[in-house]
């Protein structure tokens, strides 16, 4: 039944940058891709001297699913589900960033309600994403109970989003020129409840971790990076902010409704793992603050723009008017006709600058879709954060980097 002893014939998919230790007592250790701490999609080939990492060679790509190629075979609309699966921790932010890019190219202005709703849902997703990141990184440090608390509250968020979108993780909720549908009855009331629960649970995490001597020892002054180095290596998002630079696209180049919101940009001091943890914790609080404001600002009105180039006609009109029927068919079969041109739009995703570079040749299918994925850039500079620290620090540093395979490898 089983096939054995063929292991030696299996090819090695990567070529390490070094295969002999640089010193006599060095050992080369391969960590990943199937290692409990590397999320299954990263391989770190490290040279150890004792427990100290001398050199590290980071390989990603184990989750390269051909997203960009796949996009060229789909219409502008039907590739939204693929976009979801880039950063699957916060799929809605990807959705909206992509839709925003296409809308910019089409020169469509979204309705006020959609604008506020997208902002609200982006922040809501950001909470879920940061929660996943913190949960995973504290679990890798051995704190199971904190992990399970965070999972509980995240599950409520997932179920709540499933209430809205029909899916727990990958929502496909954004549409070019709007959203799939409006909020269901009672959704905002439940949101209020969840935010209250969130505060209680996050209080427990603060109690378990913040001043925990072991946690501080494990994360303080580990994986330190300076602002200059971080910018040099292209880091953005919480990792850049942990170094003390208040760079946040929501503040710097406001999009959606962020210019009308009151929020702070939390920054760290050292750029170490503890700062990254704490920046994420603070950002979640800011997100909650923003959601509370948005719940009151949310205007009434339509959610889809009245633009026949991208918005589907209402169902009853499809069944009664020939123009709408043809319009529907054209949108489904040919896709929205996006004017030729190219655009780069970036949103502040949970991990950093998520940019969509779209090239259209004027048809219903993109000519080229390129994603500037924060995780991928972060992996490019990861070795800087690992070298000189201990083997055990690989785990905590990698955890706070929040590498998401789908986004990194696309």
């Amino acid at each position: 039944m089983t096939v054995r002893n063929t292991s030696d014939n299996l090819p090695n998919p990567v070529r390490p940058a070094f295969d002999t230790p640089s010193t006599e007592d060095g050992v080369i250790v391969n960590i990943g891709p199937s290692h409990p701490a590397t999320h299954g999609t990263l391989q770190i080939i490290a040279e150890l001297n004792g427990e100290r990492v001398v050199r590290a060679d980071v390989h990603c790509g184990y989750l390269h699913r051909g997203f960009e190629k796949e996009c060229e075979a789909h219409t502008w609309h039907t590739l939204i589900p693929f976009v979801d699966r880039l950063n699957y921790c916060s799929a809605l932010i990807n959705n909206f960033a992509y839709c925003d890019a296409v809308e910019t190219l089409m020169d469509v202005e979204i309705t006020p309600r959609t604008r506020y709703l997208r902002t609200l849902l982006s922040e809501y997703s950001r909470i879920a994403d940061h929660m996943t990141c913190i949960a995973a990184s504290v679990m890798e440090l051995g704190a199971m109970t904190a992990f399970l608390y965070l999972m509980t509250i995240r599950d409520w968020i997932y179920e709540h989003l499933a209430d809205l979108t029909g899916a727990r993780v990958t929502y496909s909720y954004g549409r070019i020129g709007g959203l799939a549908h409006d909020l269901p009855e009672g959704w905002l009331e439940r949101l209020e409840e969840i935010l209250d629960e969130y505060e209680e649970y996050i209080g427990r995490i603060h109690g378990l971790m913040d001043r925990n001597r072991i946690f501080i020892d494990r994360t303080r002054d580990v994986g330190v990076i300076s602002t200059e180095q971080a910018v040099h290596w292209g880091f953005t998002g919480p990792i850049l902010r942990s170094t003390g630079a208040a760079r946040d696209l929501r503040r710097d180049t406001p999009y959606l409704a962020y210019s009308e919101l009151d929020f702070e940009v939390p920054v760290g001091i050292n750029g170490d793992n503890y700062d990254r943890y704490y920046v994420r914790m603070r950002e979640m609080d800011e997100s909650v603050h923003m959601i509370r404001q948005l719940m009151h600002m949310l205007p009434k009105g339509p959610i889809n723009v009245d633009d026949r180039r991208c918005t589907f006609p209402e169902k009853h009109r499809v069944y009664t008017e020939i123009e709408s029927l043809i319009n529907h068919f054209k949108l489904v079969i040919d896709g929205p006709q996006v004017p030729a041109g190219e655009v780069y739009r970036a949103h502040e995703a949970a991990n950093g600058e998520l940019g969509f570079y779209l090239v259209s040749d004027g048809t219903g299918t993109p000519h080229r879709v390129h994603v500037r994925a924060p995780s991928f850039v972060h992996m490019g500079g990861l070795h800087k954060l690992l070298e000189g620290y201990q083997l055990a620090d690989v785990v905590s540093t990698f955890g706070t980097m929040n590498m998401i395979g789908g986004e990194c490898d696309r």
Partner: protein
Amino acid sequence: MNAGDQKDGAFEYLTTRKDELVGWARKFSLFPYPFVTACCAMEFMSVSSTMYDTDRFGAALPRFSPRQSDLLMVVGTITHKQAPVLRRVYEQMCEPKWVMAFGVCATSGGFYQNYAALQGIDKIIPVDVYIPGCPPRPESVIDGIMQLQEKIAGSSHPIVSDRF
């Protein structure tokens, strides 16, 4: 079953009792090896934590060493680059072992029909349970685990074989 395996009643009775006992032990002690790669990881985290809690089925002590695990949970898309790693992990696992394809990508490649994604892990390793969904809801994962338990309880467990 060939002619040499003709058994009398008492022996058959003992064999079934033995299978029942071994099946009982094996089905309630499934140490999973989480081969977690993609989006399904989010649901894997959910299903193994508080709200859904696979520990209830005795399947929540993840052993990250393939030697010590019984159930290979392939969670997420397997790409051609990942395939040798998965195959190697499968080969390193000790008998008896079961494989669960968690989500459509592991089952069939999902909607990634392109050069990079492996079109279903059953092209390289045998699979016992397929769980559909992109990603599957935790309930369907639990259903998958229970179906696997039934399968284990209902199959025969040879104690003396060529391998073991």
